[in-house]
């Protein structure tokens, strides 16, 4: 997508909410378009690859599927732009450009974007995201992902949102005002951590089997659980070129449960930040968002652990992939025009 240039005539405004995730990125637009893409960008390795693929850059699943012919980049780490190579920055630019393109803005239409970032992002990280996005939109704001998810659901008071992503688990307490730094937490023991843990355990159990981290990630997305397993989890993994059935039940449970203690500890700590009179209400209002909320039994495991201190209810958002992007869109729609204009880059 071409970078935005100010055009003399603007027909209307398109408001978009963007969730730039370590694993998946999503966009929700005021024209009804909702799209997500795996956060991968790939460039053909050479002239031949480019000719075969017919594209100069590939995104998401398509990039993953053709990774052997590509210089593949997963540019976000723990929800922020990786530092170290200009290639990562270039990849984020490509990713943002692609997402905005997916929103199908009309020619000359002004784009106002709200972008979600991890809860405890430093100002430097926010500025880096801002730099990556601002070329493709007219005005933009950056908010924390769990706050965006909370806003999208209209859960603005006496609630905790836990956004379990690939790179981070973000916590945010809502008490009727915009959450401050102290109202938010970010853990880096998230989905990628589970993948790494599971990969290590499976390598130890099945040293002769041939699998990679990407395969392990797929196993997790299909079979993740905490608590009691509902039957055996068996997957096919090649051993010496022949696919064999492997039992990964126990390892899957242990890997998924490895993030639980930190999640519980932070949830309890954040509940304790509320006025004691309202803590009971907050316990009934814990929202799980993000791809990690799809881990089977996670909501019940949190409820069970927190019930020791009183009744508790954990609710999964309906659409975890779009929860933050939808929330960011809701913010973008509600934000007065004056605010957007004041943030326009001169």
């Amino acid at each position, binding site marked *: 997508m071409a970078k935005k240039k100010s055009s003399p005539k603007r027909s209307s405004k398109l408001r978009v909410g963007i969730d730039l995730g370590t694993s998946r990125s999503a966009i929700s637009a005021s024209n009804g378009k909702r799209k997500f893409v795996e956060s991968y960008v790939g460039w053909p390795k050479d002239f031949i690859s480019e000719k075969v693929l017919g594209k100069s850059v590939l995104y998401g699943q398509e990039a993953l599927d053709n990774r052997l012919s590509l210089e593949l980049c997963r540019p976000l780490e723990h929800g922020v732009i990786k530092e170290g190579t200009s290639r990562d920055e270039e990849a984020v630019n490509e990713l943002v450009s692609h997402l905005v393109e997916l929103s199908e803005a009309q020619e000359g239409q002004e784009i106002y974007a709200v972008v979600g970032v991890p809860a405890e992002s*430093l*100002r*430097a990280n926010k*500025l880096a995201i801002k730099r990556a996005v601002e070329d493709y939109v007219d005005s933009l*704001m950056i908010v924390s992902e769990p706050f965006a998810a909370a806003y999208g659901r209209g859960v603005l008071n006496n609630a905790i949102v836990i956004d379990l992503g690939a790179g981070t688990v973000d916590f945010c307490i809502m008490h009727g005002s*915009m959450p401050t730094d*102290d109202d938010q937490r970010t853990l*880096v023991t998230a989905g990628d951590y589970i993948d790494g843990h599971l990969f290590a355990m499976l390598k130890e159990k099945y040293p002769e089997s041939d699998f990679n981290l990407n395969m392990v990630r797929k196993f997790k997305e299909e079979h993740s659980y905490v608590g009691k397993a509902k039957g055996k989890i068996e997957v096919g993994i090649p051993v010496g070129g022949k696919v064999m059935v492997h039992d990964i039940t126990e390892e899957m449970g242990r890997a998924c449960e490895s993030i639980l203690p930190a999640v519980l500890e932070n949830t309890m700590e954040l509940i304790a930040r509320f006025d004691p009179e309202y803590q009971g209400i907050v316990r009934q209002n814990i929202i799980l968002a993000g791809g990690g909320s799809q881990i089977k039994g996670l909501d019940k495991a949190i409820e069970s652990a927190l019930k020791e201190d009183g009744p508790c209810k954990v609710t999964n958002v309906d659409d975890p992939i779009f929860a933050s992007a939808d929330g960011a869109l809701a913010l973008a729609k509600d934000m007065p025009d004056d*605010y957007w204009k*004041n943030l326009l880059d001169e």
Partner: protein
Amino acid sequence: MFKQASKRQILKDVYEDNLWVAGKQTSRSSIAPPKPSSGKIKRYLPYLVAVGAVVVTTVVTAWHGPVKQVPEHEVAVVYTEQGMGDTTIPSAEHNEGGEPSLDAPLSFVAPAEDDKVVLVSRPSVPSKEVLADLEAFELHQRKVTPENYQSLTAVDMPLAELFGLSVKTIVIDPGHGGKDPGAVGKSVYEKDIALEVAKNLRDRLLAHENYRVLMTRETDVTMSLNNRVNFANENGADLFISIHVNNFPTDQRSFIETYYFGPTDDSTIAELAARENADSHYPYAEFKDIIQKIGDTLKFQESKQLAYAVQRNLYQQMRKIDGRTSDHGIKSAPFVVLLGLDAPSILTEVSCLCNQDEEQRLKTSEYREDIASFLEKGIVTYLNKNTRVGGMSNGEKEKLAKAQQ
């Protein structure tokens, strides 16, 4: 239904926060000011507030005799931009606010005739004398009065010990890496030496089985300074040790030195700090935010003690290998990698590539293992000192008992 007025306020707060991010507003306006992000800071905060009270009381007393009990409304405390350094006799320049400066001294105005206390600069890093008084602060006497403040000076006890804090997570930071080689010898790079020494040190500390030991980088990758800081803070570092190797082409001696965060008047150190800070990736406004952490007295004290223990052990052992090794001691310097950390932190220059013999030794794995063992010894010395059973030696307990009589 959530009130529309509150929703409007939320939208306004989001907008103002974004103005701040974009650098179009200097503060976050109606949003509560950012508090220290680390849980550790939050834990220490009540104590540091109390310690701040002792600083005011003690320094004013030293200046002007015991403070008279005055009605609360008559005590005015005025803060300007933060500064740090030694307590000095006030001067016109010091009393004026202005841009934050690393070497702006902490200054106090002498009590006025009506005994009002006017503090014109935040007591960030107190002088040596004030620190001695701070170390003597007794936890159970949080309410400091003119009557009891003198008893606080009787006990020589570090704050970490006083508050029963212990070290669980140690983060080791091999300096430079990737596209940044650091100091360059004839055939060896600082980044490679630092990495191997760091790995050896990690293995040695893990063998104690008491600590969680992490490294900011385990391979030859480029890593910005703020990412190193973030990594340590996010992982709840209780100690942070950054490993470097010096190179001053104009000086053929091999010398070792250890830094902890603080101001410097030394232009050579300032140049070194500027070089090490070059890749900090901190925008100015964020740099200003983190400078406020300088006021963390506990971190300052502990960093200094850690620096002392490491430097002493390192020098003693290195001198045995090469008698020409020079001890440049412990120094305070404004390294970004030390500034942004919540935990006690040091940057140690374990050797020097300017000496040819030393460079030959540094190329060997055995010597890198030796250096790691010297660092280990220094760190363990510091840790053992801070984990004395009961927090106080018998002598200290006796001194405290006497003071309280």
